[in-house]
């Protein structure tokens, strides 16, 4: 009886406890197939947009995150979005040759290194993209399409290789 009561208390606390529902979606893998573009370029480094990407964002992915208040008030004040990647593409193609930026960032000109603008190189450590303040009732959704460019360097050797890119959302 006592155990049942404790369980009921536990479950009711789960339901009544102020919490915030969070959600994250992205829509596509990304590919840079340099056999479909002018390669080798005349000047190194040269930057390329993906040759295969999201149907909604041809330069990368459509990423959406959201929060929704469950209960009388939010139990977090901020929501964080960050990204990182798994490691180098190969022995000659470093992870740092992959860059990300909010959608709409122009392609960097050839011969410029680093690319400048809002382009940031991937690393194996999470880098914060954005943090938003959490407030108000109802569903709050944020579309954050992300663009990618690949920097072709002079010493890139031929071959195919893949890495994993991670996006992380959490609230505090």
């Amino acid at each position, binding site marked *: 009886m006592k155990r049942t009561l404790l369980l009921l208390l536990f479950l009711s606390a789960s339901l009544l406890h102020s919490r915030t529902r969070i959600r994250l979606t992205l829509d596509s*893998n990304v*590919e840079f197939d340099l056999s479909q573009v002018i390669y080798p370029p005349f000047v*190194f480094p040269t930057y390329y947009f993906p040759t295969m990407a999201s149907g909604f964002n041809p330069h990368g992915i459509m990423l959406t995150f959201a929060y929704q208040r469950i209960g009388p008030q939010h139990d977090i004040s901020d929501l964080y979005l960050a990204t990182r990647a798994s490691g180098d593409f190969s022995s000659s193609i470093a992870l740092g040759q992959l860059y990300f930026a909010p959608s709409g960032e122009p392609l960097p000109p050839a011969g410029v290194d680093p690319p400048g603008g809002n382009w940031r190189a991937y690393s194996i450590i999470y880098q914060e993209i954005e943090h938003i303040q959490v407030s108000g009732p109802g569903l709050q959704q944020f579309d954050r399409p992300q663009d990618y460019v690949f920097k072709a360097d002079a010493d890139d050797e031929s071959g*195919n*290789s*893949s890495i994993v*890119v991670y996006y992380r959302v*959490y609230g505090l």
Partner: protein
Amino acid sequence: MKLTWIMLIVLAPTLVLATIIRGGPGDRIMGFAPGDTLVDTLYVTVRVPARIGLYVNGNTEFDLGDPAVTFPPVVFPGYYDPTTVSGTNTDGIDVEVFSNSQALTWYLQTNGSGDFSATIALDQLFYAQDGEPNPADGTDPPGGNWLPFTTTYTQIASGLGTTGWQDESQDFLFQAEVDDQPTPAAGETVVIRYRVYAE
């Protein structure tokens, strides 16, 4: 003590149920904050094709009637640098080679189409890597690293991969001989070919 129990009951669900929720493209992953962390992943693939490349620039002229040129030379054979070039190499042409394969060896070769005229042979045109000093007039052959053009391909350079576009610029030298007959005003022209392949 009672307050501690209440706190534990309130916080326990958050602590116990906290987890990392993972997904991939097309997944709609959800959780609760504080506690849950959503991690969505995608694959990024890079395909770099095995490529070789060749850049050549450009046409070259030896105008021995140019006022800046002393012709005939005091001693035959006389050696002359180009009087007109198209690229950045003032003594010849710009040549660059590209290969991104460390598994294949690339080869750069050259040849010429044939004699300039009945009296001016193709092998009076010489080539060498950019920077080769000119021979003294009166020496034949010119020596150094100068090689005469022929109608068969001759290898200039080879290697395992390049780091970007590798400079293989070539200097040209024309050897004026005693039996060279005057050319028409438009001159006599040969075609110089460069080829790159890897195997």
